[in-house]
């Protein structure tokens, strides 16, 4: 150590204190030594193992992937962010620097805020990187539409809140147990919040994990035909920002955190934050499920959002064109191929639809968390008639691959199309039932009344839908079932009973050459629909 004479003491000379530069340098030091830097690989690994893989397995629809990303990213980042923040919050006590930091001139709240900001910055950087990759790949794969930014914003807004909560826990309880217990408690609390959701007007849907009607999960039919309604995300961001502000403001309240004026201002800021968060919760409680599957909050609702999206459908070159929303363009080849045998049978017959057109679904809140999803308007409308189709992905249920979806369309909409042409349904004649059955056989569809078609997937087992009282996907749990004729018109028409004259007539009719069958139908279809044809008159 040297006793060289020192420069003039700083305390005796008026000097420029540049708080911005000092804060930036403090932040730089904190960034370099933040525990979140070490937790980033954990968060990113969790994101890749869970959210990214799950989301990429979904069809490349922006609404599906954005909402899946929102809830998945938050779930993956909760524990690392809260744990790292709690670790940093307890740093002074663990490292026994409390006295040194206490006697510093800079308000303690400012020092703590810097440590929090560093933790949050790294968390945000990690999340934005994950978001960029997921959205970038989706942009490459999606056939239509653009990224939904509100789900990304909600997930981003969660990170400062999680960091603030963890940091506050570590500051208040600087024990070595705090970081792990805070991380797990935060994970549990967020998951628990969703269990308490009942209906679309629940206060608990303020939880950032919620992206829409909770029990329907990511829904392919939402924000595809109608613009995304940002009401719930706005309320969620407001809640998260308010909570963050309240927690950070509360950190400045203890004596010694700063001057009285700062503490008074912090108290006001904390109160404002609590007010904002409470208001957001209240707004969430006024939410309602709109017809397009999104949560609308009247006080936040902009009539311009939720309006129909103009699009040019993509159509197949089948005998009867199948036209889908361009967002579902990836489904078109498989869907058209699945329906081709049916369309070839029906094309040109009197009363056959001129086009199969995908329609938007209508959503209706029912008791509890149940949501009824159905077709908007009649199945057949217009002149010439257009058959309005809901793809199975637009209904509640697991997200499926294009081939799985096409298989369901074939057996559901395919049989429904046949029935609509023959006029089969409640009160139909035996001849109508026989002709329906015959056309389905000819098109390769299961005979009406046959064993239901169970959709299985390679390397997986069928499982119950969420909410089913079933603890393992095993024997005793209902499998996902699809039967013939389970199209949007309701219950499949009952087929002719085996051994009956109508059953035999259906077999005979199906065995006719296609040309003969078509010729007969062209001549007799109108009478058949009017009920003036008997089974004995069938060739």
């Amino acid at each position, binding site marked *: *150590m*040297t*006793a*060289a*004479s*020192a*420069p*003039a*003491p*700083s*305390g005796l000379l008026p*000097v*420029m*204190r*540049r708080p911005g*530069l*000092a804060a930036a*340098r*403090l932040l730089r*030091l904190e960034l*370099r*030594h933040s525990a979140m830097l070490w937790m980033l690989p954990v968060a990113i690994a969790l994101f890749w193992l869970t959210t990214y893989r799950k989301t990429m397995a979904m069809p490349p629809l922006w609404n599906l992937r954005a909402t899946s990303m929102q809830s998945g990213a938050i779930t993956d980042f909760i524990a690392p962010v809260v744990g790292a923040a709690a670790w940093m919050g307890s*740093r*002074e006590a663990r*490292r*026994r*620097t*409390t*006295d*040194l*930091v*206490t*006697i*510093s*001139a*800079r308000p303690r709240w400012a*020092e703590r805020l810097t440590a929090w900001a560093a933790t949050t910055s790294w968390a945000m950087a990690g999340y934005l990187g994950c978001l960029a990759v997921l959205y970038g790949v989706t942009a490459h794969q999606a056939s239509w539409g653009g990224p939904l930014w509100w789900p990304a914003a909600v997930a981003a807004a969660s990170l400062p809140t999680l960091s603030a909560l963890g940091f506050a826990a570590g500051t208040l309880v600087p024990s070595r147990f705090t970081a792990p217990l805070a991380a797990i408690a935060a994970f549990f609390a967020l998951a628990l919040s969703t269990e308490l959701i009942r209906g679309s007007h629940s206060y608990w849907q303020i939880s950032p994990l919620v992206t829409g009607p909770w029990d329907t999960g990511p829904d392919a039919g939402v924000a595809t035909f109608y613009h995304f309604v940002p009401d719930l995300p706005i309320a969620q961001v407001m809640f998260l920002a308010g909570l963050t502000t309240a927690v950070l403001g509360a950190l400045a309240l203890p004596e010694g955190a*700063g*001057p*009285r004026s700062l503490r008074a201002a912090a108290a006001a800021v904390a109160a404002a934050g609590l007010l904002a968060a409470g208001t957001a919760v209240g707004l969430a409680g006024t939410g309602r499920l709109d017809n397009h599957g999104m949560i609308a909050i009247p006080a936040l609702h902009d009539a311009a959002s939720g309006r129909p999206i103009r699009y040019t459908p993509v159509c197949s070159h089948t005998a009867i064109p199948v036209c889908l929303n361009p967002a579902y363009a990836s489904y078109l080849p498989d869907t058209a191929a699945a329906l081709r045998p049916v369309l070839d049978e029906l094309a040109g017959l009197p009363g056959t639809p001129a086009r199969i057109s995908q329609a938007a679904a209508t959503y209706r809140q029912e008791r509890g968390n149940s949501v009824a999803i159905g077709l908007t308007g009649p199945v057949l409308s217009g002149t010439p008639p257009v058959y309005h189709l809901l793809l199975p992905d637009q209904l509640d249920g697991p997200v499926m691959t294009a081939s799985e979806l096409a298989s369901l369309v074939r057996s559901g909409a395919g049989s429904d199309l046949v029935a609509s042409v023959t006029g089969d349904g409640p009160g139909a004649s035996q001849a109508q039932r026989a002709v329906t059955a015959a056309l389905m056989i000819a098109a390769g569809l299961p005979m009406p009344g046959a064993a239901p078609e169970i959709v299985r997937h390679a390397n997986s087992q069928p499982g119950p839908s969420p909410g089913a009282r079933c603890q393992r996907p095993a024997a005793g749990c209902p499998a996902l079932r699809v039967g013939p004729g389970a199209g949007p018109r309701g219950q499949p028409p009952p087929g002719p009973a085996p051994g009956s004259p109508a059953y035999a007539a259906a077999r005979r009719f199906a065995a006719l050459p296609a040309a003969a069958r078509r010729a007969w139908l062209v001549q007799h279809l109108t009478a058949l629909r009017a009920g003036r044809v008997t089974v004995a008159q069938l060739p």
Partner: protein
Amino acid sequence: MNLEIAGLTRRFGRTMAVAGVDLHAGPGVLGLLGPNGAGKTSLLRMMATAIPPTSGRLRLLDRDPGSYGPRREIRRRLGYLPQSLGYYPGFTVAEFVEYFALLKEMPPARIPAAVTIAVDRTALGGKANAKLRTLSGGMLRRVGIAQAIVNEPELLLLDEPTAGLDPEQRVAFRALLRALGQRATVVVSTHLVEDVGAACAQVVLMDQGKIVYDGTPGELAARGEGCGVGDAPLERGYSAVLAAARS
């Protein structure tokens, strides 16, 4: 006077750690001696504004630390080395000193040079970029001294600063103290009477929360002539004063 204390007390539960202390000090080096549990660290922590006094009057650098504004001003001009130095193992020496320079609200433009000077003055120039976790105990102590002097304090409080320093470093440290004491008030709490004798112009001896001696090292040594226990004059004076205070 940089340091004015009158009737200062500090209670921890039922223990009166500081039981009425009167002390005045201007620029120079003041040595604070006393047995374990005498109240030296508690007194130092009150001077450092780390804890408030239970009662009494305390003025530092002509300001009352009881109010936030003056206390903040004192802290800008204060340097403190606690008895048990906490640190962040991942920080480098330079980062650690810079961190506390920033917390002391030093002008940012002056910090790099101040850090370099502080690190050099504590003979850590070659270790400026070494992580603290790689340093020995003595080096860590010198890092603590560096952060205490980085802002050229007018009031420098050092609690056991030479713990872990080898004899050569202690000699250099005493020279540093004398240099700093030319314009600042330096209070050194230590068990090592030879440090006090070599560097301090004023010596205060505490026992059971009270000051039992306040004078020069020479006068303290004289008190032990013929009656104290110890191998050196200051040690004999130390033991003689304590014995008299306890009788």
